[in-house]
């Protein structure tokens, strides 16, 4: 069980700096502690340094290591860490690697779906 009042720590990974800016603004205001990474490689470093991260939101198509490759690394190292894929493409749902993630959200300016999936994943983690 988490301490009451302790904010959930979420790592957002996206190679678009303005998307990261959007996530930071919106999810900080939602009450989460927001960490940011601009690549898959960087994300794995951040995860190593921050054992207490509760959730990762991962873009797929990025320069360098793709979100799906990053996902495979995460699953291998931290089986229980929930990951939500958030991509501008819906087509990666066909790639069965993406089924390793807890959810797949197609990027939209309306972040309510992403908010909902984050909440759901965190609750599941808490109860599980």
């Amino acid at each position, binding site marked *: 069980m988490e301490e009451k009042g302790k904010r959930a720590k979420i790592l957002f990974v996206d190679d*678009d700096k*303005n*998307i990261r*800016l*959007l996530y930071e*603004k*919106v999810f900080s*205001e939602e009450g989460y502690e927001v960490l940011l990474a601009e690549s898959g490689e960087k994300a794995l470093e951040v995860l190593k340094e921050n054992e207490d991260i509760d959730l990762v939101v991962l873009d797929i*198509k990025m320069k360098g290591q793709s979100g799906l490759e990053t996902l495979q690394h995460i699953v291998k190292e931290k089986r229980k860490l929930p990951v939500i894929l958030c991509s*501008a*493409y*819906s*087509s990666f*749902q*066909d790639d*069965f690697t*993406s*089924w390793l993630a*807890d*959810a*797949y959200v197609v*990027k*939209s*300016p*309306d*972040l309510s779906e992403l908010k909902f999936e984050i909440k759901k994943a965190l609750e599941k983690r808490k109860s599980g």
Partner: protein
Amino acid sequence: MPDCLSREKIGEGECPYILPGEEELRENRELRIRRKCLYCKRLLDLIPEEEDTRGFLLKIALEELREKDRVIRDMKDFLKLQKEQITVLHRVSEVLNLSLDLREIAYVVLLSITAGELFGFNRSILLLYDRETRVFTGYFGMGPRTPAEAVKIWEEIERERKSFPVLLESFTVDKFEEEKNKFLDILEALETEIDEGTEAFIFGGKGTLIIREKGLEFPFFRKIFDVLKTPFYVLLPLKTKEGPIGVIIADNFVTGLDIRPERIESLEIFAYQASLAIHRAALHRYLEDKLRELEELNAALKQYNEKMAKMEKMAAVGEIIHHITHEFKNPLIVIGGLSKELLKETDPSDSRYRYLQAINEEVERLLDILNRTVEDARRRFSVRREPVDINSLLESRLREYAPLFKAKNIQVNLAKDEAIPPVMVDPSQIQVCFDNVIFNAIEAMPEGGRLDIRSERNSGGSIRISFKDTGVGMSEDVMKRIFEPYFTTKKRGSGLGLYNTREIMKAHGGDIEVESREGEGTTVYLIFTGGEHGGEREKGEDTLRR
């Protein structure tokens, strides 16, 4: 004894042999003797018979003279007839030389055989001969079928003064069919396979055969008797220097008249002409068939090309759409997302609220368009997997390409591993891969060659299809670039064939490998990583969101 012989002049009506217009002969004794008296019945009476040698000689000389004169007259008649026949034959050969329609040639040939002006047979039949199978097939017949019909036809020709040159121009397809239908039973009954001996007998250089006896050793000849019910018939072999092509059978079943021996020679000359015309028409028909076949092949090829180009273009369009989406979507999401946030923080009474709302709406609209475009492209270009029997798919592609292989003189051999399990792939896309690879192989063998296709299952469970051609092969420099988009060595080619093939194979979790040696040929391997993907995929839809 008349004294007309001794007088210089004779009176009108004195000589019964002087015809109107020959009056001058009455005035000129010598001329009269030369022209008339030497042939006069009464002249022999003038010659003293008893033991007068001169008288005897004179008598013989006169008789001889008269005999020779008769022969000359006959010859003149004969030559006149021959000349007429030659004129008619000349017309016939003109028609035969100009026509390339086998029906018209058959019509004119049999018309000549039956025409009174030429060979005058009661009826005639044309059988064509296939050298390969040694089979005679009834092609056409002409003439009456019954004596009653014969009388009717001949009266009609007489009454309407249908001269042969007029009849020559009378060919129409309808008339041909009408006449042919009349003979259909005979034509069908005469379809016969003959043995080598019969073939040698008919076409062995004996020329025209006049068959009179039922007891002949060849069953074919007896059969003709049975079918035609005629006392005798003529068998006219048709052949060119390339071999036999048929026979004309002619008979006089109505009149029973025998064939005139002097006609045989011209009949044979005519038969040779007819043979050449029939041969030429058959050749023409063969070439026309080939031409049509080639045209069809060309059309098919064009269709393949267009289809291929379209598919390649579509794949390229899909690529572009994908790219645009990514480049546009992220900025729009940022603009839209941030303006939404700003909107939340702005009081509706603030004039900026409306502006932010407008920004939001426009972003939504743009994203909506973009999403719909992407969905459409996705539907069209995405992989829809289903269990596919790779061997059957291969076979169906090879069947479709069979005419092309034939035309390009390419021998195709498929060695399939029957134990290959179904693979989860999108058949329409894998078909594109097969088509691309096969097409490249065809292009690599402009002079024809051999394409060996093999399907096999490796120990690891992956399935490999190899396409080995005996084409021109590729240099190392070309090999390095074959998967680059828009790289091509062909005159017409998008340069996307192998690029797309690799993209599709990779999208299916498979791969493509190429081995090539310049001047020796190329082998392309399409590798499928087994059927396990699909199984997971089917459950996958449900487990997508755990």
